[in-house]
């Protein structure tokens, strides 16, 4: 088991962190998705191709590297479809038809992974059927996806659909015919969603639906780890400069002890994310438990830390102008992204044969 990052991984982290600090600071985050930042992310750091196999122009890296990057994009609250494209990339590496990966690696294609976010994405990718599912006749897709993460910014939709050959993964050009997209305003102002209706939209069948729910759980947990780390850093920094009753607020045990508890959660969350990433790369037998653990623990811890970081700011943290609510809302949106959080606990119960 490997719970510490290699030197190369630490370098990757440092590079992404430095880039995002300069290219996407929080005032810029408030302006939303910027394709130019994405172009540089890919051009200078090659992030869009990170886990794309080398034969498709990618870097062929492992899940561990992806989690290192997602922790940083999470900490920076990077707007836009980075996470969903990573989700889609994970899916695409596990189907027969991998053509789209080249476009993703080269930064030309922003893909969104669909599937009703209310469905059991944490298990096998959302099964076809049900009110919100898609059906595919081999060349065209029909159906509605109620909430597609970053669905307005992405150019390609990758989603499961029911077909004559069973459950398949299809790709749809979101800018093409038969596609109707509606922007959904979301709790999290830094990352929107879209309702996507497909009325016979031309589709490419990529292969049988892959079983990637666990990997998505790990990827999301990495983003959450970043969000909670950055939120804790922000309030720790504030506690060192804000004065009340003649003392820095961080010197009061009422604040200090809460920050210590938040740090303890962060340490555990990081340990779990490293373990889950290692399982994904090296120990597939451990992956289901590790993935469910990651969502069950990290999702909750992330919101709790973001919540307390906001509250400890006092009144200023309640204003729109202050950044605290951005972390708080991202944390809550992420916590429910894969469905009601209890699904991860239920899955743990099953895996533990309780």
């Amino acid at each position, binding site marked *: 088991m490997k719970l510490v990052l290699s030197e190369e991984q630490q370098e990757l982290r440092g590079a992404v962190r430095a880039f995002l600090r300069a290219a996407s600071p929080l005032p810029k985050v408030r302006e939303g998705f910027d394709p130019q930042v994405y172009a540089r992310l890919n051009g200078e750091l090659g992030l869009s191709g990170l886990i794309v196999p080398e034969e498709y122009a990618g870097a062929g890296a492992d899940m561990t590297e992806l989690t290192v990057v997602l922790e940083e994009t999470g900490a920076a609250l990077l707007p836009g479809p980075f996470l969903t494209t990573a989700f889609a990339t994970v899916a695409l590496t596990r189907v027969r038809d991998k053509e789209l990966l080249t476009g993703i690696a080269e930064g030309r294609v922003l893909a969104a992974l669909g599937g009703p*976010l*209310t469905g059991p994405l944490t298990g096998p990718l959302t099964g076809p059927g049900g009110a919100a599912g898609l059906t595919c006749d081999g060349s065209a897709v029909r159906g509605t996806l109620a*909430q597609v993460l970053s669905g307005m910014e992405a150019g390609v939709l990758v989603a499961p659909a029911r077909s004559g050959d069973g459950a398949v993964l299809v790709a749809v050009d979101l800018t093409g015919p038969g596609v109707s997209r509606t922007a*959904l*305003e*979301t*709790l*999290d102002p830094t990352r929107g*969603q879209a309702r996507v209706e497909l009325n016979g939209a031309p589709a490419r069948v990529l292969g049988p639906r892959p079983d990637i729910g666990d990997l998505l759980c790990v990827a999301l947990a990495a983003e959450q780890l970043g969000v909670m780390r950055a939120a804790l850093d922000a309030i720790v920094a*504030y506690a*060192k*400069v*804000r*004065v*009340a*009753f*003649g*003392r820095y607020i961080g010197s*009061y045990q*009422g*604040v200090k002890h809460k920050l210590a508890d938040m740090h303890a959660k962060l340490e555990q969350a990081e340990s779990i994310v490293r373990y889950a990433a290692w399982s994904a790369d090296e120990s597939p037998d451990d992956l289901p438990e590790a993935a469910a653990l990651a969502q069950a623990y990290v999702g909750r811890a992330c*919101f709790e830390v973001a*919540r307390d970081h*906001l*509250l400890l700011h*006092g*009144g*200023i*943290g*309640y*204003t*729109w*102008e*202050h950044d*605290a*609510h951005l972390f*708080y*809302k991202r944390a*809550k*949106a992420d*916590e*429910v*992204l894969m*469905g*009601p*959080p*209890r699904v991860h*606990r*239920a899955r743990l119960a099953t895996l533990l044969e309780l």
Partner: protein
Amino acid sequence: MNLADYRHAARAWLRDNAPSDDSQETDPITRAKDFMARLYDAGYSGITWPERWGGQGLTQAEERAFAEEARGYALPTYIFAIGLGMTGPTLVDRGTDAQRERFVRPLLRGEEIWCQLFSEPGAGSDVASLQTRAVRDEARGDQWIVDGQKVWTSVAHHADWGLLLARTDVDVPKHKGLTMFVVDMHHPGVTVRPLKDMSGRANFNEVFFDDVTIPDEHRVGEVNDGWSVAVTTLLHERLSISAGVGMGGQRDHPASVEALRQAVDTGDPLVRDQLVELHIRTRALALFNQRLAQETRAGIFPGARGSAAKLLLAELTMFQADLATQLVGPEAALAGHPLAQAISMAPGMALGGGTNEIMRNIVGDRVLGLPPEPRVDKTVPFKDLKVGTQA
């Protein structure tokens, strides 16, 4: 009139006079002022206030009876809440007769709207560390010149008058150099700027003072004795917050047990148990508030114990919004969903009227009688004190 008759008359009056929602053609402020005038003329504004200054001189029993009868109506009294709950009682307690004569009746009748100007960006929990200056200028008549900035000011954009706490001496410890004033919000040096809260709504304002003059007869209390006046105001604030917490008051909240049982799958035993937990906490707090109310009626003043109720309400508000969003899942993250609003506004209860940490200090110090934190800021001259945000 006995209490039953009083209650009966109040019920009838409300039935006939409470505004319905269909009169949208008029400006809401005008409508609210019109209603307030009728409420006053009928004798239901300032029920417990002294008759001499325009009140009814009745008891808390009548006030409570009217409040209970009014519970079913959405009376348009929000913009008067600061005046009725905080600044008005402060003037009644601490103002000069001339000030009471001038201000109280128009306040009760809704002719003039009030705001309260204590908090500053650098002085939140620690209100007494505020930096807005008031300098006496006897050359231009006996008046004061005010410069500085306030924040978290509700209804400032509608207000005619503000109760302003300002620093009048920097050479003494912070609590000893403050003075309270009534400031004219229409003075040209007053600028009100809306402040959006994290839910995106502008419920508060920042207020800037630039060379604003206040005549000395609008000073409330002695020079440099403003802190004791402010304590009076804050006591009234705490009372009006905790009075708003009643049993069943949360029923139509989107994160209440009643709302959630419609929205989630109660066939799942874990979901059911979460709703039980919410029910337990909601009932526990509601019963505590009812007990405090019964004690008050019996003449036992809750005092600092009300801060425990405020703390519990802040925690419950956060707990239930957090729980509800977890139960509902991804839909709750859509901006239009009521729970997205609920989770966006949930921190407000913990941050308005004193943070949870301040409430715990109050309970610890004043209810349990625990030894105080050592304080450096009580003796140092204000000008030598660290305040606000400093490295």
